[in-house]
């Protein structure tokens, strides 16, 4: 991992087209601004990992019957 120190107002450029700007540092929280092309997704890491883990859990190998049985108990709106 490349480790760089930045002060408020300083930036890092990644791949010539992604910019990370340190907007504000308050206590142990850093406010970062990100400029990236529209097709480059940017997410908080822990949220991304949570979604990945949930997808993995959802992609169940449980039998169709088990799932259909429980889904029968979901009332339609």
């Amino acid at each position, binding site marked *: 991992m490349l480790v760089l120190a930045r002060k408020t107002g300083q930036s890092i450029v990644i791949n010539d087209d992604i910019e990370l700007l340190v907007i504000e540092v308050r206590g142990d929280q850093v406010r970062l601004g990100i400029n990236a092309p*529209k097709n480059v997704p940017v997410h908080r890491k822990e949220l991304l990992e949570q979604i990945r883990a*949930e997808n993995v859990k959802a992609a169940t190998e449980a039998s169709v019957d088990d799932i259909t049985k429980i889904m029968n108990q979901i009332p339609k709106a």
Partner: protein
Amino acid sequence: MEVRTLRFGVLQIPDESVITMVRGMFGFEQYTRFCMVNHRPDTSFWWMQCVDEPALAFVVADPTQLFENYEFDIPDSEVEELKLKSESDAFTMVVLTIGSGGKEVTANLVAPLVVNMQEMLAMQLILQDNRYQVRHLLPLSEPQPTVQQCDTKEEELAKVA
């Protein structure tokens, strides 16, 4: 085209019904082609079956069938990647997770799937707002008790009294 599936055997689907996910599903980024299997038309859920991996399928549902107030804005970047020209071309689905040993169903309201029905392009979004949960519990109706058959009208009235 032929789609081999773990759960439903071999399916024949029209080529144009394949949905292409711009970046796959989070955690399964290499799988981008899916088809919808309406296994139980009497329920509000479908299976989203991966065309290229027989074992990979998600249970998904139309959130308008399950919730009253679920709504979100699709960020401009995703509108562009989905090539969405009109809001009415967007169809939203949420991924359901069966948990707690098969006793619980939750919907992922933080990461909905948006499908552009015109282009058959889809993406899983991650919503930035804090309103929703990754595991939104769906209320389950009680399984109905078996109805006893009554031989006479008197017996029927006695049961209700």
